[in-house]
């Protein structure tokens, strides 16, 4: 009975260690990346951006909504983006112009799992952004990374 307990404890410990250090023995950590869009003075009603980890050291593990009420709900993305290095993230809001964000606003947060000590190279590209009438507007995308674990 004692030996059985020992085997179970050993396996459990190994599993925990494997999760902490990754399957190939490399250190693993998590971080969150905020995606900001700046539409200057124009109320932004819709956006679509492409986010990617260009050096292959990180994988997307989750995507959540932004800070403004218009984009607080989780944005749209392909489920294949999870455990992938690239995602197309998009959302729109039917709120009136006075309830939409102007200037710089956080529209989404991407959670990454990073393997190894190399810093992930991140890239975001605005594919399209629009005002309340669906007219294309200019929006500038920026990223802010914060370590979570």
């Amino acid at each position, binding site marked *: 009975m004692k030996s059985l307990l020992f085997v179970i404890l050993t396996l459990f410990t190994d599993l925990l260690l494997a999760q902490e250090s990754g399957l190939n023995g490399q250190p693993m950590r998590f971080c969150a990346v905020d995606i900001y869009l700046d539409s200057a003075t124009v109320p932004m009603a819709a956006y679509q951006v492409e986010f990617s980890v260009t050096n292959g050291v990180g994988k997307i593990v989750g995507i959540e909504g932004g800070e403004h009420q218009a984009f607080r709900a989780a944005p749209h993305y392909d489920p294949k983006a999870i455990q992938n290095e690239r995602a*197309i993230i998009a959302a*729109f809001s039917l709120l009136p112009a006075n309830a939409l964000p102007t200037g710089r606003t956080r529209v989404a947060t991407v959670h990454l799992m990073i393997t190894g000590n190399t810093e992930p190279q991140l890239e975001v590209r605005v594919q399209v952004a629009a005002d309340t009438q669906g007219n294309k507007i200019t929006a500038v995308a920026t990223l802010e990374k914060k370590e979570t674990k």
Partner: protein
Amino acid sequence: MTRGKNNDPERENLDFEAPDRLVRGLQGLQNKPVFVPRTIDEAILRSARQEFSKATRKKWRWPILIPSFGLAVAILLMIALWHYNQGRASKGQFAREDVNHDGQVDILDAFALARQLNEKASVPSPADLNGDGVVDDRDVELITAHAVSLGGGGKS
């Protein structure tokens, strides 16, 4: 192989002795030098070369060119047909999702359809993408899914 006496009677009739005067006369003809001026000689050679080159060109040009031309036409037709089919396929696949007709299927198409539904405007039947007979939020979702798909596409 040695040549013996000819036993063929027909050939025997051809073997005859020519008169000596005739033989000498003919031999004398060959010995007489014939003077051809160099300019005439060259002119004859030039014209002969031209004639021969024409004949060579005529002989080789058409048998090669006709199949080559036919092959080129066939290849061009195949390329044109392929482009035509590609255009039709892409139109059939994306045109209905490209609600704002900007040539791209993106979030703005979903947004345009959502706005039409929100304003209770009459929504054209081509927007019924899932074919359930109703244009509603599920069609908006379909366009959105297409817009953010990682599997390529996007162009209308």
